[in-house]
């Protein structure tokens, strides 16, 4: 029990440190077990320093920095046992364009490395532009959803549906 959690912690932490740098384009971050010597009782603390900034606990980072750091943690756990499918529901909402760009690069990298297929729900134009294909969900009839194929070159038309 304890050894397995510590081994898993080591693996996730190594992956987290690397993914953080990929998503932020620099900086550093790590995980630590706190509040107890027993890993099964401990808390998981996240320490992060975006490029050029002081190392701080997650709670002191900006909204977008917190979201990007949480994404690094999610993918670190994911990569310990990659799934054939990964579904992301509006995880890019608080991110600015340059962070969205690195986020999409990471998805492309993981798709290539593990063969994982991604479904990415988004309102972000830049994310849409980086997808291999787009499906639109519409409610032409109130309360009833329909799936439609969206032409990638018609992203400007998306203004009407997203």
């Amino acid at each position, binding site marked *: 029990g304890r050894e397995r959690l510590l081994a*898993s912690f080591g693996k996730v932490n190594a992956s987290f440190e690397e993914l953080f740098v990929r998503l932020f384009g620099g900086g550093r971050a790590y995980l630590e077990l706190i509040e107890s010597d027993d890993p099964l009782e401990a808390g998981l603390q996240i320490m992060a320093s975006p490029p050029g900034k002081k190392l701080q606990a997650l709670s002191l980072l900006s909204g977008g920095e917190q979201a990007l750091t949480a994404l690094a943690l999610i993918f670190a*756990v994911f990569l310990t046992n990659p799934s054939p499918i990964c579904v992301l529901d509006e995880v890019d909402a608080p991110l600015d364009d340059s962070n969205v760009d690195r986020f999409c690069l990471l998805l492309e990298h993981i798709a290539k490395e593990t063969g994982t297929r991604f479904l*990415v*729900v988004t309102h972000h134009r830049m994310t849409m532009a980086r997808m291999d294909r787009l499906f*639109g*969900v519409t409610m032409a009839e109130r309360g009833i*959803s329909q799936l439609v194929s969206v032409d990638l070159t018609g992203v400007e038309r998306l203004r009407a549906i997203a």
Partner: protein
Amino acid sequence: MQFRKIRLTGFKSFVDPTELIIEPGLTGIVGPNGCGKSNLVEAIRWVMGETSAKQMRGGEMNDVIFGGTSNKPARNIAEVGVLMDNSARRAPVGFNEHLELEITRRIERDKGSAYRVNGKEVRARDVQLLFADASTGARSPGLVSQGRIGSIINAKPSDRRMLLEEAA
């Protein structure tokens, strides 16, 4: 095993039969607020054997069945199916003779869910094990719901540790 397509009928706002093809790489899902994108995400979680209605934003599992609109009456049945490619023959014993696996979950109002694999009735547990074996499932770290990032950020350190336990 790899995902090929998802089919939904009567599931939340997707009352009519709908098919989503899952192709390699990155597929974007877009649309206005409230049009059904998260419902689609929940359908995937549901067909893999999600047992908690709360995880589906409902009070009880019946809540995933199309509840009707001012113009259309409610339904009594919801069904979601997922077609898996098993050409690598890595599916668990008992399911491995087929090149393709179709897993369906069907709920009838007040009568609970019934699961089938390639038409043969199985238990919820069998479906959960099937997906767990394929490194996925309703609780997979790869299924990131709309509130998940916020709850990781706001979680107490002890709750966050449970993330690691799921990875162990």
